């Protein structure tokens, strides 16, 4: 687990002892610390890739960390396009990877109307 939270007892700035916050990410529970961003919780859990891109299906995760690149988009409590690095984790948040396939072009198989890709 290369990305990780510094254990608070080792931290020279002496943060207050952490209160845990639990979210689910694609159905798996993950526990972080109150005040952490969703991105921070996911990264500290060892996951770097949050989603797959629309064109080449490549993995993406946090890049800029300050809300400008939109690479860290996730679905939170059924709301799309949430920057995980900007949203603080709230107890019980249901986070899912967001995937936005391109529409099938003319001549390609048309996706079934009403069925959205997972």
């Amino acid at each position, binding site marked *: 687990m*290369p*990305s*990780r*939270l*510094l254990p*608070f007892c*080792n*931290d*020279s*700035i*002496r*943060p*207050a002892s*952490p*209160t845990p916050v639990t979210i689910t990410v694609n159905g798996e529970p993950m526990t972080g*610390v*109150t*005040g*952490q*961003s969703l*991105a*921070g919780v996911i*990264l*500290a859990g060892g996951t*770097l*890739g*949050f989603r797959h*891109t*629309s*064109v*080449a299906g*490549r*993995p*993406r*995760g*946090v*890049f*800029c*960390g*300050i*809300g*400008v*690149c*939109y*690479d860290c*988009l996730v679905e939170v409590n059924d*709301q799309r*396009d*949430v*920057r995980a*690095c*900007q*949203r*603080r984790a*709230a107890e019980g948040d249901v986070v899912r990877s967001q995937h936005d396939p391109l529409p099938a072009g003319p001549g390609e198989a048309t996706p079934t109307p009403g069925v959205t890709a997972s």
Partner: protein
Amino acid sequence: MIQVLVIGAGPAGLAAARAARRLGASVTLLDSSDQLGGQFWRHLPAARPAARERILHHGWDTFQSLSATLESDGGCRIIRSANVFALETAAAGPGTVHVIVGAPDGVGRKRLSFSPDAIVLATGAHDRTLPFPGWDLPGVFTGGAAQALAKGERLAVGRRVVVSGAGPFLLPVAASLVAVGSRVLGVYEANRLPALVRGWLPRPWQLLGAWKKGAELGGYARGHLAHRIPYKLGRAVVAAHGTDRVESVTVAEITADWTPIPGTERRIAVDAVCISHGFTPRLELAVAAGCALTLERFVRVDDRQHSSAPGVYAAGEITGIGGVDLALAEGTIAGHAAAGGTIGDRALRTTVRGRRTFQGFAARIEAAHGIRAGWPEMLTSDTIVCRCEEVTYGHLCETAESTGSRSLRAIKLSTRAGLGICQGRICGRSVEELLACRAGGGLVDGVNTDRRPISGTIRLGELAAAVTPADSYRLTSTSESSKGTL
């Protein structure tokens, strides 16, 4: 009473708000974050206060006193988690500022709008990272990301990390990483000694002092940094490798104009890499307000920090990358002038003198660390340039060639480069520079990628909703407004 609206609560915005209050203006201070302090004074959240936060920051006491003064001042309204999504110009005055308040990317947030007498723009900057093969792999971060996660959450983005790019910012990034337990295997500054000497003093370590004015790293990190981490000049990470995440990087020597030198490549196993080639100012609100830009594409201001748009002042990194002390000085002058003060006022004398001292800094950073023209040599035709729309370098060149277009606007629209959700914040300048040398004879349409009429996203339902009258909008408590936000 003069109404001053300050956008951005980093060093520049905080200083502007305080200066405007000192002259008795009524001040509203907005920031999209739920914390004050901006990028520089990013700190652990109120939910998790740290006893010795100050050892991580330069000028922490300045920050504490600025924020305490403003928070306890009834004449200064601070609205956190308030993203300015549009700025509309008006026939008279600086225009109307449209704001959405609530959790970032939330739903059903409140819309507010303000038509103040003066606006101070203090929206800061973000890292500029040039494209290179593999930069889209998870595990490749900007320096700012590594620092924000370290300072704001005490999270280390990796265990074995390499820092690369250009500029004095690489050092605090490395220090932040070390302070949360990462092993920094090397810091690679693209520029070479002659450039650094030209811009700075002979000893590059003094950059650290100049940038951070000394002590804020804490003796621990500083000692660690200075003694154990290799700081190499004239080298760069030229490729990142891995399948689903970065596993190693190639570091190579590069020439003075940043062309990689064949045969000098070396692979280093890492689990994260942090890249920063400088900063890009956040200009969209300034552009929307009609502010003229300088040739280097910062907001052009006069000695009162007044832009070319009536009633619109600008301070901090959007007027030039100069560090926190310059941002504080500019903010103070901007706030003072916005509230009706004049530059000759006694109270400003030391600040004006200070600004002059710090101003040379921006020029020196550029001379020493500026991006050099050879960087496209790092790219291969399948290197992604626009991350959002996955537009490759090859596609960009092919389209420019096949259409013969010399219009940035047209090439953007025909390749989708810069049209994605980040709106060219990350790739914009790189796309411009690549096309300027690829489109036959250069670009001629005079368009740039800084115009973004919508600043940050807004939900369609929120845009459709009525504006909450600003005067009836009351913050019940800061914790209410900051719930679930960062």
